[in-house]
């Protein structure tokens, strides 16, 4: 993208300033001027014709398409599956092309919200790098040939009962696919099918098997949980059901003085973890320990809770030991209303212990419900190793690899690539010509889930139906279709297969069609949530604890935005600042400041060549079990000492034009033993620049976040605005230090002004006036809103180099603040100031106020002076320094929202509360004569938000939710002292620390001294090079 833009610049420059060498060899000054003048005149004559360009064509349908009116959006229900759970979605479709995905309010796993993966999936559909052609040994082949060739092999295998057939796929919850699998294995009893995920939930599966004698799936109910303890489980992101978990968890944290949660009813979250996760960042108490210590802590806590088993206190620090008694007391106090969660990167023994604790605390049946494990099959790395051995032994004649990329993701100690090369016939079905496609003889393009029929289960087992939104863009087949084509007599479409399965389930043939149509329309199949399973509690059998690693431990986690690497070619996800680290376009070896100091590692702001938003950081060599990987370091306060965290999913060699070569490949260190292992870290002396947005768009430490504790809030809800009288305020204002003074005024004098300082009479805002409130208590920083905004508003990506120059274009950013291990997230979109500083500096009136209180941005009027951005105290305006929007790739154009202008180079842009949605709803309401109900217009960020922390509406409407939020005593304006009167306001973050816990007493109510992490980081890193912090 960057290169393209640079080319565009060069080309333009050539046109305006002709190259003198073109004018011949003997070029004197006079001749040059003549040529330059003539060509400039020609260029301007050609470029500035006043006549309109051709108006273009209108191509109507031949026959009217039913229910479709050109330009109007239709909505269809579908679903996306990731990591063993599906989320129900509603897809917006315009003239047959899907443009936006939202959560399906009728699906229990979504309730209308979504996550960053489902928001970004729409870009994946249109990805021009998707595989388009069936390949045989790299040469194009037809489907007929491919099918005939592969069926011939299958026929040969039929005699051997399929002894030479192996299938490797990711895990799926699809009942139809499970049936196909069963049928296939019935007919080919000697064949084997392995379902293996690189970032799957094997440990949870095995842990529940250890605890109950059979694998069971746990459904957690956070709405009933007063106390939650997470043992390194990031239940607010990346976990099955995390969207619903966020909603239920947030519902217990929406503290209000009127209605809502009272401070006493607020839930409490304890997190013990190594890497700072989204859950950890939202914890009321967080303990950072090495990965192996999590289990030791769990055992010690279990002992404290009275569960028989040896407690290993030896490895615990003083701080951890101090946690045990008060934590156990708090959990015991809330018996039946607590939850203990265990992360998937931890061994099964810890999961079993988690079950033991939940059992002892009476949570089973209260906050936890067990069901059958509904993934069709769960195979771990052992099965993958067996498969590799079989492949290598030439016992296998045909291997099918379905929607899975083992060459890239297989553990480093399994020589999968070598084994695969020994198989006579290998077939890969996938969206991309990825690493595995290159290693297989056949590659068959896969259909995207938005092009396929399917049925997948949500986190509680409820079946959600996938329906195609568009004909397959690049042809391709779904897993179901490939399997029927190869193994069944008749090739069946995925639609037929799914319908046939459900016809059988429904039973009644007569009513099936109506029932099916209803189900497809609604998106979910009712009453398919799996019934509660009575588990037999076998008692906690103590096993060997994971031994602590000697020096440093390395933990492997799924990437917060790329997951296991499957989204590596999605530019939105690459450029999305990762929720906690704010890193883009890279992964890093994440260490704590103390560990960095111990190893002599450091990072510093990168300040050269126009780069002012990057981090220059040490490159280290990570050595583990005889394998090495080089990685840049990211020093993250809050990370456990003595450990390093790496995210998987980067360093792809064949991801596509976006994802190839981004970051380093952590899979090369990861062995079949999951989770974490010992590592050596060696400084290489090399440096590398990371594009980390933590320090971007800083509000320079001017008290942007307000926070308090639940107890403090109960005592003094009006803690933000002390009751000042006019005289006192005047005195305070006069006492402010003169302009230009470098000493900041004392905190008391920086209180929000009660009386606007204006020479003009008060403007009366009548009629509908839009406003927004954002609840900082419930914002988890998950970043779904950022991607949702990007999809809705045609926001371009800019690439790593431009991010380093602080030129990322996201209209809503999530600022992260940290102090004493506590984290706060603050989403900052345009504040829509009533006294907007940007408006009166625009020389061309391109940004002015609308009648309903929006700070309109008129792109076609903007000439790009950037005065507005300079004058914006919130730093929410984004400038197209280059032609960031891709105007040339045809494949990407259908994704764009036609209701929003695609901005070109030299134009300022920013959030306008999704004005296209507002105007659309207004027109619809005026045409139909019906009123706009409160909440009917949702901004894209609000709609996506899993914790519903954002509320938008008419601030003049009596009883509107946004008005209620804004009338809360802890509502405040960001930088309100500047008298900008923003329409977006914030509800102060309220946390619920336990006074009995270490540090619980000292959590100050005012974090006025909070400063953006980046500043603190860099200032000290620069002053003390070599010490890391």
């Amino acid at each position, binding site marked *: 993208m960057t290169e393209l833009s640079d080319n565009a610049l060069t080309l333009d420059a050539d046109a305006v300033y002709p190259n003198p060498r073109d004018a011949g060899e003997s070029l004197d000054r006079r001749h040059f001027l003549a040529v330059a003048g003539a060509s400039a005149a020609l260029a301007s004559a050609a470029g500035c014709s006043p006549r309109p360009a051709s*108006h273009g064509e*209108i191509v*109507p349908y*031949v026959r*009217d398409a039913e229910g479709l009116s050109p330009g109007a959006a239709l909505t269809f229900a579908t679903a996306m599956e990731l990591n063993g759970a599906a989320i129900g979605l509603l897809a917006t479709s315009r003239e047959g092309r899907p443009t936006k995905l939202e959560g399906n309010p009728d699906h229990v796993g979504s309730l209308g919200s979504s996550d960053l993966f489902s928001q970004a999936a729409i870009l994946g559909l249109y990805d021009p790098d998707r595989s388009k052609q069936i390949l045989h040994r790299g040469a194009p082949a037809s489907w007929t040939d491919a099918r005939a060739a592969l069926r011939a092999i299958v026929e040969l295998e039929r005699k051997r009962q399929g002894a030479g057939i192996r299938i490797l796929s990711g895990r799926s919850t699809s009942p139809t696919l499970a049936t196909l699998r069963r049928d296939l294995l019935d007919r080919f009893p000697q064949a084997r099918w392995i379902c293996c995920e690189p970032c799957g939930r094997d440990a949870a599966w095995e842990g529940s098997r250890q605890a109950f004698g059979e694998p069971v799936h746990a459904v957690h109910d956070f709405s009933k949980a007063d106390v939650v303890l997470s043992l390194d489980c990031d239940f607010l992101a990346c976990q099955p059901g995390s969207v619903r978990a966020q909603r239920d968890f947030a519902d217990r944290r929406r503290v209000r003085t009127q209605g809502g949660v009272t401070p006493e009813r607020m839930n409490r979250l304890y997190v013990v973890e190594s890497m700072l996760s989204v859950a950890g960042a939202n914890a009321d108490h967080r303990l950072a320990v090495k990965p192996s210590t999590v289990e030791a802590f769990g055992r010690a806590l279990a002992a404290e809770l009275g569960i028989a088993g040896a407690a290993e206190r030896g490895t615990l620090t003083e701080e951890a030991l101090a946690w045990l008694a008060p934590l156990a007391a708090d959990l015991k106090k809330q018996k039946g209303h607590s939850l203990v969660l265990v992360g998937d990167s931890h061994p099964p023994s810890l999961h079993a212990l988690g079950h033991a604790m939940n059992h002892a605390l009476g949570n089973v049946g209260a906050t936890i419900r067990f069901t059958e494990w509904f993934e069709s099959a769960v195979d771990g790395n052992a099965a993958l190793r067996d498969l590799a051995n079989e492949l290598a032994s030439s016992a296998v004649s045909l291997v099918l690899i379905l929607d899975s990329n083992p060459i890239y993701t297989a553990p480093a100690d399994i020589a999968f690539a070598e084994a695969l090369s020994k198989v006579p016939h290998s077939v890969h079905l996938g969206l991309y010509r990825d690493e595995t496609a290159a290693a297989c003889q056949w590659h068959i393009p896969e259909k995207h889930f938005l092009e396929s029929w399917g049925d997948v289960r949500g986190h509680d087992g409820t079946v959600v139906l996938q329906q195609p939104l568009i004909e397959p863009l690049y042809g391709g087949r779904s897993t179901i279709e490939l399997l029927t084509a190869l193994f069944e007599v008749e090739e069946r479409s995925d639609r037929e297969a799914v319908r046939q399965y459900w016809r059988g389930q429904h039973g009644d043939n007569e009513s099936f069609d109506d029932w099916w149509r209803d189900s497809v329309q609604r998106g979910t199949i009712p009453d398919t949530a799996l019934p509660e399973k009575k588990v037999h509690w076998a008692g906690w059998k103590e096993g060997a604890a994971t031994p602590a690693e000697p020096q440093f431990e390395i933990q492997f986690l799924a990437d917060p935005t790329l997951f296991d690497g499957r989204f590596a070619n999605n530019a939105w996800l690459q450029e999305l600042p990762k929720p906690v680290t704010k890193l883009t376009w890279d992964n890093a070896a994440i260490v704590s400041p103390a560990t960095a100091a111990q190893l002599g590692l450091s990072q510093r702001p990168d300040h050269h060549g126009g780069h002012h938003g990057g981090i220059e950081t040490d490159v280290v060599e990570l050595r583990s079990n005889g394998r090495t990987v080089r990685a840049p370091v990211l020093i993250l306060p809050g990370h456990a000492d003595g450990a390093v965290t790496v995210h998987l999913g980067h360093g792809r060699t064949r991801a596509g034009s976006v994802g190839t070569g981004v970051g380093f490949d952590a899979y090369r260190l990861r062995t079949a033993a999951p989770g974490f292992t010992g590592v050596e870290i060696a400084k290489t002396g090399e440096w590398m620049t990371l594009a980390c947005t933590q320090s971007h768009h800083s509000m320079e430490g001017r008290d942007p976040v307000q926070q308090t504790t639940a107890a403090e809030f109960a005592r003094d809800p009006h803690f933000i605005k002390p009751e000042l009288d006019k005289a006192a305020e005047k005195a305070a204002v006069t006492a402010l230090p003169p302009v230009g003074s470098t000493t900041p005024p004392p905190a008391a004098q920086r209180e929000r002004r009660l009386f606007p300082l204006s020479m003009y009479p008060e403007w009366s805002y009548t009629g509908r006036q839009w406003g927004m409130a954002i609840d900082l208590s419930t914002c988890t920083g998950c970043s779904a809103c950022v991607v949702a905004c990007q999809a809705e508003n045609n926001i371009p990506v800019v690439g790593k180099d431009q991010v380093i120059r602080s030129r990322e274009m996201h209209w809503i950013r999530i600022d992260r603040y940290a102090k004493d291990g506590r984290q706060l997230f603050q989403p900052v979109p345009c504040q829509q100031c009533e006294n907007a500083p940007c408006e009166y500096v625009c020389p061309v009136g391109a940004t002015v106020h609308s009648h*309903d209180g929006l700070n309109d941005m008129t792109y076609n009027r903007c000439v790009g002076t950037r005065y507005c951005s300079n004058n914006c105290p919130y730093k929410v305006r984004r400038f197209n320094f280059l032609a960031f929007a891709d105007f040339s790739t045809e494949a990407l154009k259908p994704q764009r929202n036609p*209701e929003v202008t695609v901005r070109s180079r030299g134009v300022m842009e920013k959030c306008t509360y999704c004005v296209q949605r507002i105007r659309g709803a207004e027109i619809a309401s005026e045409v139909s004569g019906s009123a706009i109900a409160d909440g009917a217009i949702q901004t894209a960020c609000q709609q996506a938000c899993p914790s519903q922390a954002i509320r938008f509406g008419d601030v003049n409407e009596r009883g509107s939710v946004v008005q209620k939020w804004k009338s809360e005593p802890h509502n405040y304006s960001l930088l309100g002292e500047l008298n900008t009167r923003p329409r977006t306001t914030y509800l102060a973050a309220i946390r619920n620390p336990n006074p009995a816990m270490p540090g619980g007493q000292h959590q100050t109510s005012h974090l006025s001294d909070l400063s953006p992490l980046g500043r603190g980081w860099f200032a000290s890193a620069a002053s003390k090079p070599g010490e890391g912090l």
Partner: protein
Amino acid sequence: MTQIFPRWFDPLARFAIVGGALLVPAAAIAIGIFYRSSYVTAAHAPTEQTVPFSHAHHVGQLGIDCRYCHTTVESAAFAGIPPTETCMHCHEQIWVGAETLAPVRESWKSGTPLRWQRVHSLPGFVYFNHSIHVAKGVGCAECHGRVDRMPLTWQEKPLTMAWCLECHRDPAEHLRPRGEVFNLAWARTDADSPGKELAERYRVKDSRALTSCSTCHR
């Protein structure tokens, strides 16, 4: 010191002072007129079409309602261009062999859509919506002129922003009773309610709302 300018330069300088004062505004006005002229806006220039469809015949002579073909004009932003199917409703029975209708029959037979040259084109950053204008009593003829008298369709109005704002600043004079929206021949008589009353009755927004940038630009 030698003189830089010769003596004969004086009258030239005097002329430049007076003439410049006249010429500069004159040039500005000329440019303004030029850019609003139909040469630039392409108003009144009939557009060649594959099928020489005549609104004058179908609307003026036969009296077919606008909405018979432009079906979504009351409900969507886009008024709608009829599918071939709509043409064939009649032309399966009348003028079945007409030479000029050959592309229509071909389209119907082969399933390939007709390609019409666009007559009214707004820039991509203008979000015009037909339904709201119709609902507020803005007649078709207000912007499209007497389409019922156009043998080949042309653009009647300049479609410049200044022209849009003329109405958005003071819509009253451009409103008609809702029942007359599709009546191209309608002209206000004394018996009709004045525009101000209609604006009130149809709750047309005030000029502040109608001239907000985001009303049309997003």
